[in-house]
């Protein structure tokens, strides 16, 4: 596909994968390390085509393990860096991610989720939610997890991810799915050069004028020291909670609240419309950050609504976080399909009708 890259603010029709890659170049990444896998190979392709022209490094690594460890090294040198993969490849990266989280290095990892478990299918899925928000690798750590729901957000969240990653010295993660990667929508790309670099004093990029060597490690032989590192990380994760983001669609007068993210939230928007056409007050809460999770907002809405329906493209993962936030204030239901299948808006709407009938809700 031929599109000129010169004009900055003209709306373009782009695939989610391409928009994300172009945004990353505009965010000023120094390098990209990755290994191809459907449904996100366009990201590597795009970088391979564009980065050499625009002053960046692309390495097609020999494996995902290699790619994430290249990210570890490059992030340690204080550069702006990213990798991307899809589910099975992201599993291979978990050891490296744990190291990067422990060493407190900013970087961006993108997962264009496909159906699993195992090598799975190439179709869109949200089955990696737990892996993304609960750490994924070993040890007590968290990533900052952003969940785009449109091609525009696929581009915008790259900037947000780097901003947050660098603010907290923490790996950021974009969790999207195959459909968001493959679909085209109108996108206005963020402007190149609008994300300034910050000088850092921790990078292992040569002594410069410093007196002491910087050391980046995740190995602490003394448990006392390891505990201090953990306490520090936990304090940081607590501070990160204020970065929580969500979108509310007609939640204030809702009888039934849908909670869904990413592509699932797009499907649920249609369900809200279907409901409103029939005078059923359905609202939608869309978590934008999956970690930190909008638990306070869900707790607040749980008092106002009669029932909550969590809609996921998996067997039910986020529903656990929703239930914790709701803490018994109202019933929490789940619907979703697995293995790359997607619920249609009509299917979800039917589920809403079943809930109204079974829980004998009196709607306002």
């Amino acid at each position, binding site marked *: 596909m031929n*599109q000129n890259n010169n004009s900055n603010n003209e709306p373009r029709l782009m695939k989610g994968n391409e928009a994300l890659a172009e945004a990353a170049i505009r965010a000023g990444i120094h390098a990209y390390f990755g290994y191809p896998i459907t449904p996100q190979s366009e990201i590597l392709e795009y970088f391979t085509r564009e980065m050499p022209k625009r002053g960046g490094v692309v390495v097609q690594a020999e494996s995902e393990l290699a790619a994430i460890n290249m990210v570890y090294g490059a992030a340690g040198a204080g550069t702006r860096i990213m990798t991307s993969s899809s589910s099975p490849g992201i599993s291979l990266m978990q050891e490296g991610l744990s190291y990067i989280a422990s060493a407190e290095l900013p970087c961006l990892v993108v997962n264009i989720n496909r159906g699993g478990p195992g090598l799975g299918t190439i179709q869109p899925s949200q089955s990696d939610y737990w892996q993304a928000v609960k750490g994924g690798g070993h040890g007590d750590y968290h990533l900052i997890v952003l969940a785009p729901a449109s091609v525009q957000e696929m581009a915008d969240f790259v900037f947000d991810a780097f901003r947050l990653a660098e603010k907290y010295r923490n790996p950021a993660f974009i969790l999207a799915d195959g459909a968001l990667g493959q679909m*085209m929508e109108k996108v206005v790309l963020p402007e190149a050069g609008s994300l300034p670099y910050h000088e850092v004093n921790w990078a292992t990029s040569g002594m410069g004028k410093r007196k002491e060597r910087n050391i980046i490690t995740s190995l602490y032989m003394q448990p006392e020291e390891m505990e201090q590192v953990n306490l520090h990380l936990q304090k940081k994760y607590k501070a990160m909670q204020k970065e929580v983001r969500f979108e509310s669609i007609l939640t204030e007068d809702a009888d039934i609240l849908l909670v869904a993210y990413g592509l699932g939230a*797009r499907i649920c*928007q*249609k369900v809200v*419309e279907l409901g409103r056409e029939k005078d059923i007050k359905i609202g939608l809460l869309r978590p934008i950050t999956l970690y930190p999770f909008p638990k306070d907002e869900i707790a607040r809405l749980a008092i106002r609504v009669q029932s909550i329906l969590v809609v996921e493209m998996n067997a039910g993962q986020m529903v656990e976080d929703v239930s914790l936030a709701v803490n018994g204030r109202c019933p929490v239901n789940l619907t979703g399909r697995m293995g790359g299948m997607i619920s249609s808006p009509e299917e979800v709407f039917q589920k809403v009708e079943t809930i109204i009938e079974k829980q004998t809700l009196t709607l306002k």
Partner: protein
Amino acid sequence: MEKAQEIIFAGFGGQGILSMGQILAYSAMIENKEVSWMPSYGPEMRGGTANCIVIVSTSRISSPIVSKFDSAIVLNQPSLDKFEFTVKPGGLLIYEESSIINLPTRTDIECLRVPAMEKAQKLNKKQVANMIILGAFLEKKPIVKIENVLSALKKVLPERHHHMIPVNEQALEIGKHFAKSPVKVTV
């Protein structure tokens, strides 16, 4: 155009299904409309068939994946079999004549056959059959202006193919003209 137009394009790989959808989406974007283009990229693509869902709307598009369509444009038999019954009542079904053996049976929708392959062959450019179909579609559903389709072609086609734009324009016009007064089929 009041509400969203939900359209499925389907056929074999190589018939220009995905690009037909992409050109429509791009044209609508030029007209400041909201658009989404959702391709099939799974096993069916690897099996040789291709489809894409295009949604054009004046307001924010909710789900890019829908199961009922205002229009279906099908260029092979498996696609007709699969999508005929996904067209909303009162909707439009366009099919390429030479690619279909078993004709559609629904009477609650408008079915338009377009001999696009035959007409494209007369132009000595088989590749523009998809533009003949698109022209016919736009005559029935004027979602976008033809001039914007031409602007979209300039954006979507690589520059080395820009000399093909006039024949594409011709193809769009042939399609439009045909849809205006289609020759009745005698079965």
